């Protein structure tokens, strides 16, 4: 069974994100970038499926600038068998990525596509759902447990009310939640082996996908700074402030 894992290159989770001076977006120049942590979990799950004999080949895909190569090299070092980069300098929105992944999925014909439930940069939480819809495949989002059968997968999902276990027919798209697994550390021998694994670079044009943004970003601003607190004289003053200033009661 072939598994496709989509990985996104994002600003590292340790970096304090800053808005660009012109308000056009978030500063990414000279900022440490890494694999989206949710995608790392997706990849870890694929590697575990392979180790358990449930998967035969893992293909990692990333869409974006040339530097996404690094992210894919990491994916290869974690355990993907080969990598595909859809290289473009264009701004990619979830729908464009879903379309790109769809064309790769049709070419590669995996039984399972796994990716993070969202990326920690824009927190869109859309790509997996859009991909499933475009392909007409089953979807299981927010997975915290995945059990593979021959033609189906049993997926436990983290939902507001608790846990929701569903069975989906394959091929399917699964998006991962935080508690699905704990990704392993990359080993030195695997970093070295990753160099020799197949690496393919494609373009949106070659795949015949129009990636033009459908949404326009008007302005990005930093959240307002927190104001210093004050002491109130008594409960009545507190209630008054909550009602008339904060307007929360």
């Amino acid at each position: 069974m072939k598994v496709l894992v989509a990985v996104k290159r994002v600003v590292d989770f340790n970096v304090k994100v800053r808005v660009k001076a012109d308000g056009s977006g978030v500063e990414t120049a000279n900022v440490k970038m890494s694999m989206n942590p949710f995608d790392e979990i997706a990849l870890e799950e694929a590697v575990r499926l392979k180790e358990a004999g449930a998967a035969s080949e893992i293909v990692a895909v990333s869409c974006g600038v040339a530097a996404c190569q690094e992210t894919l090299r990491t994916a290869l070092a974690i355990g993907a068998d080969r990598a595909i980069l859809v290289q473009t300098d264009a701004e990619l929105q979830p729908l464009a990525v879903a379309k790109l992944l769809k064309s790769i999925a049709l070419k590669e014909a995996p039984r399972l596509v796994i990716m993070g439930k969202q990326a920690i940069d824009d927190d869109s939480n859309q790509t997996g759902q859009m991909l499933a819809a475009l392909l007409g495949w089953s979807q299981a989002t927010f997975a915290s447990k995945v059990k593979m059968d021959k033609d189906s997968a049993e997926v436990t999902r983290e939902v507001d009310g608790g846990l929701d276990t569903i069975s989906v027919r394959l091929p399917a798209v699964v998006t991962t939640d935080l508690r699905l697994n704990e990704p392993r550390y990359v080993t030195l021998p695997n970093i070295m082996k990753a160099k020799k694994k197949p690496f393919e670079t494609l373009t949106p044009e070659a795949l015949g996908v129009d990636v033009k943004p459908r949404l326009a970003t008007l302005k990005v601003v930093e959240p307002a700074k927190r104001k210093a607190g004050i002491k109130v004289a008594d409960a009545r003053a507190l209630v008054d402030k909550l009602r008339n200033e904060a307007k929360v009661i």
Partner: protein
Amino acid sequence: MSAYTAPLKDMKFVLNELAGLADVAKLPGYQEATPDTVDAILEEASKFATEILDPINYSGDQEGSVWKDGAVATPRGFKHAYQQYVAGGWGSLPFEAQWGGQGLPKLVATAVEEMLTSSNMSFSLCPLLTQGAIHALELCGAEALKKTYLGKMIEGSWTGTMNLTEPQAGSDLALVRTRAVREGDHYRISGQKIFITYGEHDLAENIVHLVLARTPEAPEGVKGISLFLVPKFLPKPDGTPGERNAARCASIEHKLGIHASPTAVMVFDNAVGYLVGEENKGLSYMFVMMNAARFSVGLEGVAIAERAFQRALAYARERLQGKDLVEGASTVPIIRHPDVRRMLMLMKSQTEAMRALAYVVAAAMDFAQKVEDKNQRQKHQAFVDLMIPVVKGWSSETGIEIASLGVQVHGGMGFIEETGAAQHLRDARITTIYEGTTGIQAGDLVGRKIARDSGATAKALVTELKRFDAELARSKNPDIQAMRPVLAAGTAAVADCVDYIVANAGKDVRGVFAGAVPFLKLMGIVAGGWQMARAALAAEKLLSGDSNFYQAKIKTARFFAEHVLVQAPGLRDTVVKGGAGVMALSDEQFLAS
């Protein structure tokens, strides 16, 4: 308590711009060390250091290793960390593929080693000693020994030790008394060894001791010392650990620092041992490894300095105390006070200078090993030989100073263990002592490395520094122009001292040796100033990139010139004129007060 973050930007800058990683990667056998691979290695090693080793550094210091009935329990978390270290294959980094190594350059290994040491010096000593033992076996061991031991040691499932010191034989190994008596295909080893780092522990299934001992017919002194391999468990024919050998840990020491690293007293009671190489050549084998070991201790100075700096910086940004000298209105973080900044800049600039020099020397080791042309190889080796005592002596001495500044930045809290600042000072304190004290390094520098070749290698360095001055002259940057005369004065100071040493090593050897440590320090700050000036030039060309990093690099280089390198002429005077003063008193006059 602030966590360790590997200074990956500076490491990559030094690797690429100063140490010439691209050229190292062109050497035969090192083609795998491409920039993207090295980036990935550094990235993953930094995760290991920050997430696995750093969290057990302070607790390891507090708990320490504990001896009970001949066994040693390492602190909580060490066993797990070691398993992760083995699983990650980190021990295999610099060794030959034939034995399961990854065959990567010393330069890359150096950056990884710095991270392991910064995050947890006590832990890092176990891999360090193992690597030394592997190195010795690789170079001198018979094929059969290599087959049995190298694979296990490189993968890390067995660790290694170096058993040199005995109670009466410290810096002077001529006094070694441990006996080795031949018995068929092996020897029987008897004697006591002290200060054996990780001589006993619970991290791995077997421990491979390399032991210096004398055979009954051996000549007196250093020419009669042989090297033996003595395993804790004798390997069975299938290679797994078998019978317990009579190599036992009698106790472990209670030390000023590196508490988690067990320092064992080892007793060999007719233990089975195997000769490494030939009889009576043990000390020369040791010397082969000595360069690597001394270099690593110098790197420990860099690593602890970096860690102490990070901790002090985090504290200085948080601790609110006093008003700004100019703005004055509100209480400010202490980093705003000029003297605190001065301390932080001393820490930062010297750490960066030491890192640059250490990595440049590491690259020279790679060139000395692998360059095709024999003359080039010899040239690089001569530079390495000259700089090893400098890296070891200067970086360890400065590492202690920087760790001490780290305590000072913390004020009263620095004297309290819970901030962690004191641990770095205690841990660093051993680095000027083991693998040859600073005095021994300085003696090696003036005696073997300078007087013996009449200063030829040192003069070649002076020539290079003068050539480099012309490069500096072309820069229009005012900070770089400010450094230039300071570096020129430092260069002149080195040249004067080399002339003095060459002229006086025969007729006034005491005077020369009396100034050896000040000369070593002079060499360190001039070589460090040279590297910082190179860094400034490289940064100037890259300013349009990560401008904060590169601007800071140029300013830091200038600070180093004006606060550290500027001391060079004074040190020259001490070296050239101060020898007589050192020897002026009679032994009795020391008691005359």
